[in-house]
C-alpha cells in the first residue's frame, strides 16, 4: 500500500446568502475522497456542482463547514504553524484563468524567480539555472528566449504552462488544478493535459484535476488514476477511468457521457440524447435528504426523494450512489 497523499473526510460546505446571511445553501455534502501518492484524480462536474469549492477546500484555500482534510496524514484542523509552513509548500494550486492569474507587469523570469527565492532560497547562478530548468520542464523552450518577455507575449496555452511552472517552484508533491484547459484554445488543450500527465509520470507528483470535459478526463486517466463525478455537491460515481466511462451506472454519468461531443460525424448525426426533466443545478439546503439528481432523473422512485444515497461498491474500484441502479 502506498501512502495516502490527500484525504477528505466527511467534508461539507454550507454557504450563507441573502441580506442577513440567514439563507443557507449546501454546496458540498459529505465528501469522502482519498488519493494515493503519485496517483491521478479527475473530479468531473458541470458548473454549479461545487467542484471549484471542493478544489479550494482540498488545497486549504477555503475551510470546510464540517469534516476534515488530511495532507499526508496530518489533519489541517490541528496542525501547528511551523508544520503547516512545511506542508503548505507541498500542495500547490493552479488557477482556472491564466489571463488573470499572472502578474502582467512582471517578466516571466521574475514570475518564476520570486517564489523560488522565497521557497528555496536560491540566488544568482543557481536561481537562473532553476528557472531555466522549470521553464524547460513545462515546455516553454528555449527558456532563455522567454526570460525577459511578459505574460502578454504568450498565448493562453503558454500562460497556463507558466502558471504550472510557477506552482512547481515550491517543489510540490500534490498539484491541484481547477479547469486548467477551459480558457485555452482547442489545439493546445491536449498539450496541457499531456504536460500534467508527464509531471505525474516523471516527477511522481500527485495531480488532482477539476474538469467538465469528460473526454479530457478520460485522456488524463486512461493509463492510471480515478474519475469522480460530482453532482449537486455529492460524489455520485467514482472509479477507474475504464469502469466509469465504459460501464457507467449512475443515470447522470450516463447522460453526461452520451452528451459529450464525439468526433465521428456519422455516429454524431444519428444519436439521440436522453431528455432530462430539468437542466438546472439542484438547490440543496443543509437539512435536505434526497438524491441530488432526483429532480432531473427519469428513473426516480419515492426513496430517491427522501433518502440520500451513499456510495456503494459495485465492482472492484467502482462505486456508485444510486438507489435504482446500484445492482
Amino acid at each position, binding site marked *: 500500500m502506498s501512502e495516502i497523499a490527500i484525504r477528505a473526510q466527511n467534508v461539507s460546505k454550507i454557504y450563507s446568502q441573502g441580506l442577513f446571511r440567514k439563507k443557507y445553501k449546501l454546496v458540498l455534502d459529505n465528501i469522502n475522497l482519498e488519493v494515493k501518492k503519485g496517483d491521478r484524480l479527475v473530479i468531473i462536474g*458541470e*458548473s454549479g456542482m461545487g467542484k471549484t469549492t471542493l478544489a479550494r477546500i482540498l488545497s486549504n484555500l477555503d475551510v470546510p463547514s464540517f469534516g476534515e482534510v488530511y495532507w499526508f496524514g496530518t489533519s489541517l484542523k490541528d496542525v501547528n504553524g511551523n508544520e503547516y509552513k512545511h506542508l503548505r509548500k507541498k500542495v500547490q494550486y493552479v488557477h482556472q484563468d491564466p489571463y488573470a492569474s499572472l502578474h502582467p507587469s512582471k517578466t516571466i523570469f521574475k514570475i518564476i524567480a520570486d517564489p523560488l527565492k522565497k521557497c528555496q532560497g536560491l540566488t544568482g547562478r543557481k536561481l537562473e539555472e532553476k528557472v531555466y530548468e522549470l521553464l524547460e520542464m513545462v515546455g516553454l523552450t528555449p527558456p532563455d528566449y522567454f526570460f525577459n518577455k511578459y505574460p502578454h507575449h*504568450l*498565448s*493562453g*496555452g*503558454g500562460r497556463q504552462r507558466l502558471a504550472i511552472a510557477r506552482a512547481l517552484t515550491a517543489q510540490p508533491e500534490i498539484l491541484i488544478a481547477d479547469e486548467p484547459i477551459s480558457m485555452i*484554445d*482547442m*489545439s*493546445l*488543450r*491536449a*498539450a496541457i*493535459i*499531456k504536460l500534467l500527465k508527464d509531471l505525474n509520470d516523471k516527477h511522481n507528483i500527485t495531480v488532482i484535476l477539476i474538469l*467538465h*470535459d*469528460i*473526454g*479530457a478526463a*478520460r*485522456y488524463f486517466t*486512461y493509463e492510471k488514476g480515478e474519475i469522480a463525478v460530482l453532482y449537486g455537491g455529492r460524489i455520485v460515481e467514482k472509479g477507474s477511468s475504464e469502469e466509469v*466511462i465504459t460501464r457507467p451506472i449512475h443515470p447522470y454519468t450516463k*447522460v*453526461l*457521457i*452520451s*452528451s*459529450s*461531443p*464525439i*468526433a*465521428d*460525424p*456519422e*455516429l*454524431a*448525426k444519428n*444519436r*439521440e*440524447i436522453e431528455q*432530462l426533466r430539468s*437542466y*438546472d443545478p439542484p438547490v440543496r439546503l443543509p437539512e435536505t435528504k434526497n438524491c441530488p439528481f432526483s429532480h432531473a432523473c427519469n428513473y426516480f422512485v419515492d426513496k430517491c426523494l427522501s433518502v440520500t444515497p451513499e456510495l456503494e461498491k459495485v465492482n472492484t474500484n467502482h462505486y456508485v450512489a444510486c438507489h435504482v441502479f446500484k445492482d
Partner: protein
Amino acid sequence: MNCLLKVSNLKAIYLVREGTIKATDDVSFEIFENTAAAIVGESASGKSTIIEAMTRTLPPNGRILSGTVEYKGKNLLQVKEEELRTIRWKEIALVPQAAQQSLNPTMKIIDHFKDTIEAHKINWSYEELVKKASEKIKMVRLNPEAVLFSYPMQLSGGMKQRVLIALALLLDPKILILDEPTSALDVLTQAHIVQLLKELKRKLNITLIFVTHDIAVAAELADNIFVIYGGCLVECSPTVEIFKNPKHPYTKGLINSIMAINADMSKIKAIPGDPPSLLNPPSGCRFHPRCEHVMDICKEVRPPLVQLSDGVKVACHLYKEGGYRR
C-alpha cells in the same frame, strides 16, 4: 444544390493602436440551400469577423476592405442600409455571441419580441405577437407561459440561448447565422442546443451558418465545414470528408487533438507551437511555423485555395488542382 449565399474575396481588418489586425484575409466560400455550414477556428482566428463582415455588424473599429457577399443577385456589402433592413431578420437572422449578455436585463422577454417587430415596421396586434412568439418559444422546447413574461435574469444560460434562437426565428428567416451557439454552456445544455438546432433545420428547412471553436460540435451539426486559421480559409469540405480524410496539416492536427470520449486515447496529439498573432501574421502560409511538412515555398508564397475533388478545397502547397503534389 442551390447556392444561396456566395462570399468572395472577403477582407476585413480592425484598426487598433498598434496597427491593423488582419482578421479576415481573402476568404471565399459558398453556402448551399438547406445545409448547415460550420466555420471552425481557434479563438482570435477571425471566425466571428467573417460573419460580422457578412452581416455588416462589425464593431466601430472594423473595416471591410474588399469582397462581395452575394444573396439573391444583390451584393449585401453594397446595398443601402434601408434595403439591408428589409433583408435582415426577415431573410437572414443573426444570433450573436455571448447570448447570456445579449438580452436587455430591464426588459421582459416579450418586449424583446415587440422591439423586433417594431424595428421592422410590422403591424401585429399584441395578441397576435404573443401568439407568434409562443409558437417560436415552443419550437425551442420552452414553456411560453413561463418564459415570455419573465426577465432575462430569471432564466438560465441555456434558456437565454434558446430564447435568442426563438427571437431570431420570429420573422421566419431563410438563413440563420449563429455565433458560437454552444460556448459558455454546460455539456448537457450544449448537447441539448445542438439537438434542437438539428431538429429546427429538419422541420423548418432553414439554412444554418454557425461559428464554433469546437470541431466536435461541427461534426454533429454541420454538412460542410470551413476551417479558418489565422484569418485565412485553409480547408473547406463536407463534414465526413474532414473527419475521414483531412487534407490540410492544420485540419489533421486539429482532428488529432480532439479529446473526444470515443477517440483512441493513445493517438491524441496536440499541434506544437502557438497560434499566430494577426497583428503581424507570418509570411506566406500562416500555418508554416507550426507545420511539419513546411517547405521553402510555404514561407514566401501564400497558397491559393485549390479544388481537389467535388466540394473539397484546400489552401496548401502540398496539393495542386485535382490531387496530391508530392
